[in-house]
């Protein structure tokens, strides 16, 4: 069973969300990926306005329409627009089909401005996915979180289900930065398939806290899946990482929506 935590529509061929989703699923099928999580719209928008957040989420809702049995949406929100984000969470998660929220690079997640967003997502049982990177080449954006920002957030929200996107990119640092916070899970997506990444994550965090994701279509499903399939870990640990952990995390919110997990 393979569930992919981290997919997008931007970068795929196709004019409409439906066309792009069909292409994404065709590739996922080749790799044996049964279900996937999808966030953000046809274009990447780094600092979305409230209108752009709504449009991006509408595009995901449109893409999901024919794929509710295999795809789950995360609602794109921004620490720069807290009220609009809370409205989007009501529309897309509380009253809509989405099961998580996606925070990207508009505002660092250690900022207290994000507290009401994370608190509402946690009330709903939604997974909070935060992009993180530790960039060594001076290209860190002003609003781009590191795993240390997420660790700060985790202290204020011990009940939240927090995902450390990309394991911070520089995973040797990312894993250390979140190690002490049991409600932070790491996303393996969106970095080179560097040998040792999965083994270190399992050793330091336990396999229960490690989630397979690809960051397709920016990354190859294959290169990212190869990290988990080739890692020197047990078959049981591999199962947890490839899908069982994500299924467990999404179980409560899916059941609350009357959907099978």
């Amino acid at each position, binding site marked *: 069973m393979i569930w992919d935590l981290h997919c997008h529509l931007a970068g795929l061929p196709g004019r409409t969300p439906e066309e792009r989703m069909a292409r994404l699923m065709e590739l996922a099928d080749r790799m044996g990926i049964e279900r996937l999580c999808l966030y953000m719209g046809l274009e990447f928008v780094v600092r979305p306005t409230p209108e752009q957040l709504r449009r991006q989420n509408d595009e995901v809702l449109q893409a999901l329409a024919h794929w509710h049995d295999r795809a789950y949406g995360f609602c794109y929100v921004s620490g720069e627009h807290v009220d609009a984000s809370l409205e989007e969470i009501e529309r897309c998660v509380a009253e809509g089909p989405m099961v998580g929220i996606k925070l990207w690079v508009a505002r660092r997640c250690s900022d207290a401005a994000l507290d009401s967003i994370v608190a509402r997502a946690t009330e709903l049982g939604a997974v909070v996915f935060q992009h993180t990177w530790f960039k060594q080449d001076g290209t860190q954006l002003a609003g781009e979180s590191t795993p240390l920002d997420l660790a700060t957030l985790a202290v204020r929200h011990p009940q939240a289900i927090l995902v450390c996107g990309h394991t911070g990119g520089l995973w040797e640092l990312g894993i250390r930065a979140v190690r002490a916070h049991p409600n932070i899970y790491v996303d393996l997506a969106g970095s*080179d398939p560097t040998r040792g990444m999965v083994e270190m994550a399992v050793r330091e965090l336990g396999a229960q806290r490690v989630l397979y994701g690809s960051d397709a279509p920016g990354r190859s499903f294959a290169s990212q899946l*190869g990290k988990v*399939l*080739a890692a020197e870990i047990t078959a049981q640990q591999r199962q947890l990482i490839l899908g069982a952990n994500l299924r467990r995390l999404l179980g409560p919110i899916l059941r609350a929506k009357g959907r099978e997990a």
Partner: protein
Amino acid sequence: MADRPLIDTNVYLFRWPFRRVTVDEPAALVRLLEEQGVVQAWAGSLEGVFDRDVSGVNQRLAAVCAAYPHLLAPMGSLNLALPDWQDDLRRCHELYGMRGVRLHPNYHGYTLDAPAVRALWEAAAQLSLVVQVVALLEDERTQAPACAVPHVALAPLLDHMRAVPQARVQVLNAQRALRPGEAEELAAAGVAFDLATVEGAGGVGSLVERIGPQRLLFGSFQPLFYFESARLKLRESSLGAWAEEQICVENARRLLAAA
């Protein structure tokens, strides 16, 4: 695991100074490659990235490869910033019978428009040696601060290929170093690539659409990347049997074939 024979054009022996991995001992690496159905591995030396005694580096590389002659084809290290690199080239060819050399211009502090590069193109073409240019060894965003290097700018290769059209050239780990449209230009000029760093969903397929199936070679970037990440890209892109055969075996054979 092994479903088709592979020639892996992007393999290194020895250790990467910033990370220990389980297969950085030659015996373990050879076992892994054999399990994966690799029938020939073009093996460079990670020592050659950092050690200025390139003659010693190549001696050790040749010695290990000689212990696994059915599998390991050594690709000698050359540092074109060192005096008398020409004699290292001569030794790679005459003393060790190597079929190619591997360059790391960013780690050695020169660019591809340096005069020595043209001189190497001419000398290697004379000897029918393959030249592998490694565009990067690590994403610039994750490099250790004490050892951060830019990706290799590949544009000067076009002039070298025009001047020495019989040159046999492959760029390894190219993806992050390529400007839009550059892969097409270089491929048209005769440059080949490997797929270890090719990314994007169906990324190998879209690269093949742009450069054709005869300019891309299988490469896994052992021991630093997970092997399956390279192999699974072939399944993801579903290229058809003929194109896969070119990428997995035939293009490499052709590049290495005696002139």
